[in-house]
């Protein structure tokens, strides 16, 4: 895209203002490029972590379903369902935010709730049910972790798009526009100077001619 010359008045003050603005735009572009590279690094790291957690979650769910099917087979469907209905997991979920290069990302923290009563198992002190319960808790923890990573991915992706657009606008529109305007003004002033010199020379010549005729 061809850069447009943006100028209200072709004056030297305007030229100084434009030069100042070009310096500022270049500085901001440098910072934005740094921010972009950091955001991309964080994004890629989150993608890697997300893939690891997904793999782990899949394995944990497999184990949990195996344990659950064993419990169902041993105790029967009704007692296990009864246990699941009345049992309570003693934990709470704390949601907050963390800041990564200006992007607010969610943080979910699972906290053990010591005051809550432990789950009572009507099916007796079944090690199978306890094992199933442990496996489910692990699954839940991994699910929470994955939810955090997925939302972080979305937010980071959006921010990367936004920063990229700003960077492109600066790189391909604003800075070339300022450059070309500064060049245009400089050329205009140089031309004005040259005209001034030519005019002075002409005036000098006229004065010399007049003086020559006077003698």
């Amino acid at each position, binding site marked *: 895209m061809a850069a447009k010359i943006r100028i209200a008045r072709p004056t030297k003050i305007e030229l100084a203002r434009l030069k100042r603005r070009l310096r500022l735009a270049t500085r901001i572009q*440098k*910072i934005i490029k*740094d921010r972009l590279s950091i955001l991309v690094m964080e994004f890629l790291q989150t993608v890697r972590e997300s893939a690891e957690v997904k793999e782990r979650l899949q394995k944990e769910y497999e184990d949990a379903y195996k344990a659950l099917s064993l419990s169902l087979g041993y105790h029967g469907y009704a007692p296990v369902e009864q246990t699941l209905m009345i049992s309570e997991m003693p934990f709470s979920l704390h949601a*907050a935010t963390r800041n990564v*290069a*200006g992007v607010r990302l969610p943080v979910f923290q699972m906290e053990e709730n010591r005051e809550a009563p432990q789950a009572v198992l009507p099916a007796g002190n079944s090690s199978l049910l306890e094992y199933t319960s442990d496996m489910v808790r692990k699954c839940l923890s991994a699910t929470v972790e994955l939810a955090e990573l997925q939302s972080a991915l979305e937010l980071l992706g959006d921010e990367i798009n936004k920063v990229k657009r700003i960077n492109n606008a600066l790189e391909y529109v604003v800075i070339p526009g300022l450059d070309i305007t500064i060049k245009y003004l400089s050329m205009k002033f140089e031309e004005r100077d040259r005209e001034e010199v030519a005019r002075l020379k002409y005036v000098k010549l006229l004065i010399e001619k007049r003086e020559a005729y006077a003698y």
Partner: protein
Amino acid sequence: MPIEQEKDDVMAHYLGSELSSVNSQLPKKRKTLSQLLHEEHPRVCCLDGSEHFFRIDELRYLASILDDHEREELLLPMIIEVHSGMSEMLVRSTRGGDEGAVEAKVFANVLGMPASVEKTGVRIYRSQLGAMRRTLKTTTQYVFTL
């Protein structure tokens, strides 16, 4: 020749505000590790009014590699200065006399290699940043400088 003065003014205003908004995520005041360990929900307030939360696991990890005195010295979040156009970053540090000694110990533990300590702070390289951020997600923050 097209004259777009209004658009130009908007751009000038935008450029001015962009520079200030880039680092608005910095904390208003940093807290020591020992202070944060005593809080139920450890967090600091940021310049833009938001809150930055610290993971308890990370704080416990830091506490496990530092002694009592160092826990009092270490200010969190650790600020990583990203200088434009440079491959290395600087972690400015504590209020104590040994500038960067505590941070250097933390990074040495995280990276598994000694960190280079300078007068101004601890110097880390871009290649080390990924490993460090992976372990210290909430206890480090970026600041962009020229």
